[in-house]
């Protein structure tokens, strides 16, 4: 049986205007436009956000620190002619952390873009690299911020005491253990 799943899209979130975007996770969607809605529904209904990006998974070139370790990948990257395009560069800078936006480069292809990014970021430990063309991104519209993200005015839902049944069950269990 063939795979009936929809294609995958990476979801990125910008909490405050001007800050780097961070990777949120993945959603399935029939197309890019729907993936923006799904990304919002899965990751961003409650937390505040300024912007949301979605990118088709197949548009992202990824390399891990292990894959790049012996330098053979880097030496294999050829100089390429052809039209230049802009690429977003994301990196995982901490062992336990999300990928975050670390720059933008202009290059003739994704491999050349990563090579350029690596030389620009020299000295920095990047555990995982992602590069993708700026043109592959669908970003939420500034005009839609209110309807997309501005829902949680109170954060009661994060407070356990907000759910008396949970609190009550915990007390009952604690009583049982005594």
């Amino acid at each position, binding site marked *: 049986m063939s795979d009936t799943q*929809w294609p995958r899209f990476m979801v990125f979130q910008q909490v405050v205007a001007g800050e780097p975007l961070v990777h949120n996770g993945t*959603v*399935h*969607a*029939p*197309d890019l*436009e*729907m993936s923006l*809605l*799904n990304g*919002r*529904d*899965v990751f961003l*209904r409650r937390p505040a956000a300024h912007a949301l990006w979605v990118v088709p998974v197949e548009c992202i070139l990824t390399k891990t620190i292990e894959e790049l370790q012996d330098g053979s990948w880097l030496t294999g990257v050829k100089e390429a002619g052809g039209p230049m395009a802009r690429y977003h560069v994301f990196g995982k800078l901490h062992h336990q952390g999300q990928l975050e936006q670390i720059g933008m480069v202009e290059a003739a292809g994704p491999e050349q873009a990563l090579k350029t990014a690596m030389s620009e970021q020299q000295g920095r430990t990047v555990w995982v690299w992602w590069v993708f063309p700026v043109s592959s991104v669908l970003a939420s519209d500034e005009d*839609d911020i*209110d*309807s*997309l993200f*501005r*829902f949680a005015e109170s954060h009661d839902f994060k407070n356990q005491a907000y759910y*008396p*049944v949970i609190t009550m069950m915990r007390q009952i269990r604690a009583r049982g253990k005594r």
Partner: protein
Amino acid sequence: METRLNAGLAEYLIALGDDELILSHRDSEWCGHAPILEEDIAFANLAVDELGHARLWYELAAELLDEDKERFPDHLAYFRDASEWRNVQLVSLPNGDWAFSVLRRYLFDVLEVERLRGLKQSSYKPLAEAAAKIYNEELYHVRHGRAWLPRLGLGTEESHRRMQTALNDLWPFTPQLFQALPGESELSGVVPTTPGLEAEWRTKVVADLASANLNPPEKSNPMNRPRTQQTEHMMDLLSESQMVARANVEARW
């Protein structure tokens, strides 16, 4: 405001809340059953939004009637029989397939946005403020529903057939959406007239449907009953949504 106006506006708000709460219940029934995880979560979000809207309308009604803001919404939700509800029949119809549920939401949400646009201008400040908050959420609801129309309507032969069938089944229930709500005749300047929303709704809906190759049925028998009449499905719905609250009246949630 005078007492008579208060009572009329409370009736109006309870009817709005009833629409939201019953639709919220139907949408929540998809939880764990939607065709794909992402849509399952999306529908649960929509259901929770509508639940919040119902609560806002009921709380406003409580204030007008000098009732307790905490208890009154619970009383309305859990301790009224089917004959006391004032929602439109469209929202209580069983979910059917995914096409039916998506299209039902869309038809209803387009009207809600139009109504909220008017309510935001209400001379009664608390109502205008609540409407402004709900309006932003409903813009997203319509966006979600409208996004699905062409994807299902122009998708596969099966998805188109299911959407057209759903439209044929839902269309007869749409005239009831434009009846004046309970209390509305006394509320000029406070709320927009509901019959006045129909033209704008029809223009938008027919255009969106057409771009998804969907056509309202030429002949249909309108089910234009007063809001005091509920479908037989309301009994089943309420027996489920009210069961726990009624089984233990003293319970605190």
